[in-house]
């Protein structure tokens, strides 16, 4: 069960009218390494992972939905007042034809989301290594979006999200160390 707080994890402010950025941001919305893929991947893998790291997958998977909500807010703000002509100029003409300015789970190139983006192998190490890779790929995607963006306020929020990818990767790496630990051996920190 979840509880919902009616606020964003980090403020989202967009200072320039640039619907092209919305198109780029869709990579993190419905893309292979996006926030939706991350949330679904972790919240599904956690059923078949050793008890010690279930909580970690629950926490991070939940946070990914908070990130998804931030990305959705960015895309919405960047497109809500755009005319069909402006959307076409931004490369979102095909999106408009199918969805108006509604949000949809597809990547920056318009490819719809698929469950084939994520995996649950049932092997704890294989699954955690995939999670680490996913975090690094998402971190890289945020870097490339920041490189493409001239909006200082949007970049501020994107930098927060990139930092969270680093922390998530760190925690997944620690989870691997926990599972590598010899069972029943006395350890002192």
């Amino acid at each position, binding site marked *: 069960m979840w509880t919902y707080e009616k606020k964003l994890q*980090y403020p989202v402010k967009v200072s320039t009218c640039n619907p092209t950025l919305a198109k780029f941001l869709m990579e993190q919305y419905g893309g292979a390494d996006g926030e939706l893929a991350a949330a679904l991947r972790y919240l599904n893998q956690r059923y078949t992972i050793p008890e010690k790291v279930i909580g970690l997958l629950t926490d991070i998977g939940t946070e990914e939905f908070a990130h998804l909500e931030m990305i959705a807010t960015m895309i919405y703000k960047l497109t809500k007042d755009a005319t069909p002509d402006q959307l076409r100029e931004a490369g979102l003409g095909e999106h408009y034809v199918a969805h108006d300015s509604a949000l949809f789970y597809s990547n920056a190139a318009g490819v719809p989301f698929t469950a084939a983006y994520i995996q649950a192998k049932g092997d704890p190490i294989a699954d955690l290594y995939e999670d680490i890779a996913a975090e690094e790929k998402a*971190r*890289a995607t*945020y*870097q490339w979006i*920041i*490189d493409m963006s001239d909006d200082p306020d949007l970049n501020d929020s994107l*930098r*927060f*999200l*990139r*930092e*969270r990818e*680093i*922390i998530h*990767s*760190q925690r997944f*790496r*620690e989870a691997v*160390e926990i599972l590598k630990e010899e069972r029943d051996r006395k350890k002192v*920190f």
Partner: protein
Amino acid sequence: MENHPKTFTKVKSYVPFHGPCDPCPPIGRKYYRTPPNLYVGFQQPSLPQFSPAEALMKGTLWPVFYDFYENPYKKRRV
């Protein structure tokens, strides 16, 4: 993970080969990031912390994991 270095850089760079038949001017130096999570290993107890207010803005409680990102090619933009 035991042998991680005490200090590390968060950005690395290299100069990709540029041949006489390459059509575009060379990018010069190519950069890639190597964030702290690659080096720190299992987090040790009692590391320094940001204040709660600062941590909420930075995205981490721990200065050791903080890594500000800026477009490394910005200067070249004309």
